[in-house]
C-alpha cells in the first residue's frame, strides 16, 4: 500500500460513515460485553431498521468508563465531540435510544462525565471507542499506518530510533527503561536474525490496560511492532498474549490477517524491501511469563522460567538472537510519536517521564475504568477529579500502584506528580498501570498478605529465595493477620524481605517484598495493632477469632 492508497481507504470509510444521518456506537470491549452489549447492539440494529431512519449501528472498542457500562455514544458522524454518551444501557432501552436520535437525549441514560475525561490526553487510547476494532480500514481512516509507510519510504532505521529516543518514551510495562536505548542496543547487536516481541502477558491483578488496547485498537500494536522491526532489523515478531484474553486473541488474529491482505505485513511491505510478519503465541496461565526471559523460554517451548541476566535479551534473547521485547502500551505509542513528532511527545509529561500513561483505576473509586493521563498529573487529581473520589462517604486510605511489585501510597503523598522516579521515591513504582484505591475498610496488613499470596503461587520455583521465601513470608503475614504473631515474627518478616529482595533471580522475587515494605513504611501502626492488641482497625482480619484463610474463603477481601 502506498500513502495515497491509505488516504483513499480513509476517504472511503469516512464517506460511508457520513452517508448515515446518525451513528450509534456501542462498546463491545470485554467490560461492556460482559454486560451483554452484543445483545444490546443487536437490539439497536433491529430498532434502527424498524424505525426506517438512516442510522448506522457500530461496535467500537472501550470507551473508558467501564464502571458505567454498557456504554453507547450517539450523534452525527461528523461531530464526534458533540455526541451524547449514554451509560448503563440495556436491551430494553434500544427503542428509546433510536427514537432520541436528532431529538432530546434520553435523560436517565445520559452520562455526565466531564470531569472524567477532563485532563486526559488520549494517545494510546486515541482510537479506542471510535473505531470498530475488527475493521482495519477504520484504523486507516484515523491516520493508521501513515507512520509505518512514512518510516519505510522516507526514513532510515537509525532515524526512526532517533525519533523514539528523542521522544523520551520509556518502557510502559513497568521497568521504565528508555525505549530508544533498547531499540538502539538491539539494532547494534550482532546477528542475522532478530526478533521483536510484544509482551501482552499482562498479569498484575487489577490491570487491564493492555487487554483494552488489544481489544479496541489492535492494528496500532501491529503498526508499532512493524516500525520497531524496521528500526532494529528484525523480520519476525511475536505477540505473547495470555490465554485468559480470548477476545483479544481473536481480534488480534483477524487483525493480523487483514493487515497481511492489505500488504502491511509479509514480504515487500508497501513496495519496499522490508519484510515483517507476526505470530501470536498464547500464555498458559503463569504470571512469571510476563518476565522477559521467562516469556522467551515459553516461546521456545520450554518451562516458563527466567534466566540470569546478563546476557540481556537485546543481545541474546529468543533462540540466542538479539531480541527486542516491549510492552503493548509501549508499541502503541510508537505510531503516534512518528506521526506527530518526537518534540510533540516530549512536550507532554515531566522532565524524565515523557508522554502519557494509561492507568486502570479500580478499587474503592467512583469512576472505575481506564484513564490516560499525562505524566506529571497528581494522584489527587486522578483519584478525586477524574476518578470521582471514594464512594459511599468513606475515607481515602491508600492507593496501590504497580501491582504485586509495587506499593501503597498514603494520603500525605497525594499531591505527588506521577513519574517513574517519584513513585519509586515514595516506595512504590509505576508498574504496568494498575491503580487500586483503598478506603478505611481495607486492612493494610491483609493487602500485603494478598499480594504475597499472589507472588507465592506465581513463583516459578527456580530460585530458593523466591520459591521458599515468599511461602515463609506469607505464613508470617497470615500469623499477623490472625493475631498470633510476636515482635520476633515481624523482625523475621522484615529480614526475609531484605534477603528475598536482594538475592532473587528475577523481578518477581525481587519485588515480592515491596507491598510488605511499603505498608510497613506508612502503616506500621496497623501491624503493631494486630500483634500487640489482636486488633484490626478495618475490621477485616479475624485476629484471634477465625484464621485469615477461612475468611478469604468466605469472600472477605482487603
Amino acid at each position, binding site marked *: 500500500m502506498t500513502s495515497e492508497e491509505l488516504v483513499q481507504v480513509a476517504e472511503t470509510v469516512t464517506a460511508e460513515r457520513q452517508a448515515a444521518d446518525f451513528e450509534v456506537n456501542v462498546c463491545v470491549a470485554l467490560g461492556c460485553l460482559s454486560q451483554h452489549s452484543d445483545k444490546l447492539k443487536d437490539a439497536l440494529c433491529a430498532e434502527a431498521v424498524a424505525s426506517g431512519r438512516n442510522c448506522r449501528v457500530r461496535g467500537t472498542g472501550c470507551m473508558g468508563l467501564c464502571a458505567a457500562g454498557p456504554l453507547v455514544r450517539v450523534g452525527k458522524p461528523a461531530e464526534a465531540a458533540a455526541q451524547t454518551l449514554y451509560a448503563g444501557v440495556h436491551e430494553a432501552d434500544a427503542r428509546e435510544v433510536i427514537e432520541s436520535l436528532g431529538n432530546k437525549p434520553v435523560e436517565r441514560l445520559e452520562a455526565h462525565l466531564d470531569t472524567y475525561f477532563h485532563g486526559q490526553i488520549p494517545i494510546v487510547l486515541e482510537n479506542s471507542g471510535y473505531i470498530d476494532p475488527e475493521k482495519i480500514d477504520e484504523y486507516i481512516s484515523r491516520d493508521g499506518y501513515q507512520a509505518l509507510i512514512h518510516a519505510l519510504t522516507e526514513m532510515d532505521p537509525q532515524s526512526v530510533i532517533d525519533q523514539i529516543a528523542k521522544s523520551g518514551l520509556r518502557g510502559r510495562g513497568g521497568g521504565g527503561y528508555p525505549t530508544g536505548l533498547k531499540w538502539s542496543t538491539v539494532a547494534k547487536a550482532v546477528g542475522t536474525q532478530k526478533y521483536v516481541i510484544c509482551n501482552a502477558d499482562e498479569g498484575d491483578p487489577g490491570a487491564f490496560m493492555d487487554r483494552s488496547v488489544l481489544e479496541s485498537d489492535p492494528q496500532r500494536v501491529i503498526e508499532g511492532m512493524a516500525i520497531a522491526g524496521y528500526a532494529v532489523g528484525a523480520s519476525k515478531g511475536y505477540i505473547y498474549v495470555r490465554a485468559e484474553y480470548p477476545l483479544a486473541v481473536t481480534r488480534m488474529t483477524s487483525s493480523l490477517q487483514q493487515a497481511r491482505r492489505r500488504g502491511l505485513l509479509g514480504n515487500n511491505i508497501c513496495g519496499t524491501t522490508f519484510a515483517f510478519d507476526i505470530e501470536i503465541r498464547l500464555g498458559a496461565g503463569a504470571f512469571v511469563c510476563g518476565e522477559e526471559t521467562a516469556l522467551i523460554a515459553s516461546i521456545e517451548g520450554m518451562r516458563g522460567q527466567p534466566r540470569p541476566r546478563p546476557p540481556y535479551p537485546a543481545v541474546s534473547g529468543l533462540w540466542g538472537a538479539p531480541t527486542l521485547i516491549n510492552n503493548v502500551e509501549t508499541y502503541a505509542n510508537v505510531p503516534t510519536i512518528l506521526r506527530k513528532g518526537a518534540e510533540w511527545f516530549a512536550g507532554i509529561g515531566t522532565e524524565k517521564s515523557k508522554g502519557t500513561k494509561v492507568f486502570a483505576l479500580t478499587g474503592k473509586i467512583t469512576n472505575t475504568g481506564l484513564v490516560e493521563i499525562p505524566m506529571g498529573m497528581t494522584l489527587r487529581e486522578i483519584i478525586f477529579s477524574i476518578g470521582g473520589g471514594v464512594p459511599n462517604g468513606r475515607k481515602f486510605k491508600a492507593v496501590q500502584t504497580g501491582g504485586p511489585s509495587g506499593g501503597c501510597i498514603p494520603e500525605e503523598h497525594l499531591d505527588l506528580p506521577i513519574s517513574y522516579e517519584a513513585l519509586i521515591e515514595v516506595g512504590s513504582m509505576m508498574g504496568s498501570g494498575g491503580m487500586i484505591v483503598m478506603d478505611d475498610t481495607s486492612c493494610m496488613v491483609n493487602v500485603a498478605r494478598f499480594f504475597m499470596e499472589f507472588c507465592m503461587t506465581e*513463583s516459578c520455583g527456580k*530460585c*530458593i529465595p523466591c520459591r*521458599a521465601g515468599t*511461602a*515463609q513470608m506469607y505464613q508470617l503475614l497470615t500469623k499477623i493477620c490472625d493475631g498470633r504473631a510476636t515482635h520476633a515474627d515481624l523482625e523475621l518478616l522484615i529480614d*526475609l524481605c531484605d534477603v528475598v529482595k536482594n538475592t532473587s533471580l528475577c523481578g518477581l522475587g525481587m519485588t515480592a517484598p515491596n507491598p510488605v515494605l511499603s505498608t510497613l513504611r506508612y502503616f506500621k501502626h496497623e501491624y503493631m495493632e494486630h500483634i500487640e492488641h489482636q486488633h484490626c482497625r478495618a475490621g477485616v482480619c479475624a485476629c484471634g477469632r477465625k484464621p485469615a484463610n477461612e475468611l478469604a474463603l468466605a469472600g472477605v477481601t482487603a
Partner: protein
Amino acid sequence: MSVAVDVKTLVIDGINVSARADQTVLEVARENNIAIPTLCHLDGLSDVGACRMCLVEVKNSPKLFPSCVLKVEEGMEVTTASPRLKHYRQTILELLFAERNHICSVCVSNGHCELQSTAQSQGLTHVCLPYRNPSLPIDASHERFVLDQNRCILCTRCVRVCAEIEGAHVWDVMGRGIDSLVITDLHDPWGESSCTRCGKCVQVCPTGALSDKSKFGSDHPKYPETVSYLNMMREER
C-alpha cells in the same frame, strides 16, 4: 601458530587474578583457591544460577551477581565474602531446611551430603524459620534407585545431567513454585519411565533425594566429578 586467547585481569577479594575471557568468576575464584559455596552448580553441567548461594558483590553495582554465570570482565572488582553475603547464604540454607523434610540423622546421605556440608561450612547451627513439614511422596518403583521428594532441593542437577550428558531427558520439573517436583517422563513412576538406568542422576544429586538401593545405612558416597570427566572424554573424541 596458536590462536591468541583473550585474557582478562580482575580482582577477587583483593587478590589480583587473571582469566580467559570466556571464564566465569566462579571458575577463576576456584582456580585461585577462593571458596564460594554452590549447590546447583556442577562442573560439566550447564549453569542455571538458581540456588543463589554463589552470589558475589561487584564494585560499582548495587546488585549481587551469581558467580557461576557471571563472565569475567577487565578490571572487575569482586567480593566473595562479607557479613551481608554470609547472612544471605545462611538464610538460603535455612529456607531449604525449612522447605521440606530434611532429617539428617536417618538419611542415606548423612555425612556425604552437600546441603549438610555447606550448612556446616557456612556456620549454620540451627534454623530460625518455622519448618513447613509438607507431605511428600517417595518413589521406590525403580529396581535400583529411590527418589525421596522430602530431601530434594530442586537444584535440577538430575534434570541437566540426564538431558545434557545421558541425552535421555527423563527428568524434568512439574508444577510451579513451592509445589514444584522433579518427575520422570510425564510423572510416571520412575520404574516405568524411559530411564536408561545409567545412575548419573544419583551420582550428581547433592542430597539423599536420589539414592542407590544397594547402599546400606548412610554408606553412600557419591562421585559427581565423573561428569566433567565424561565431558572431557567426549570432547577429545
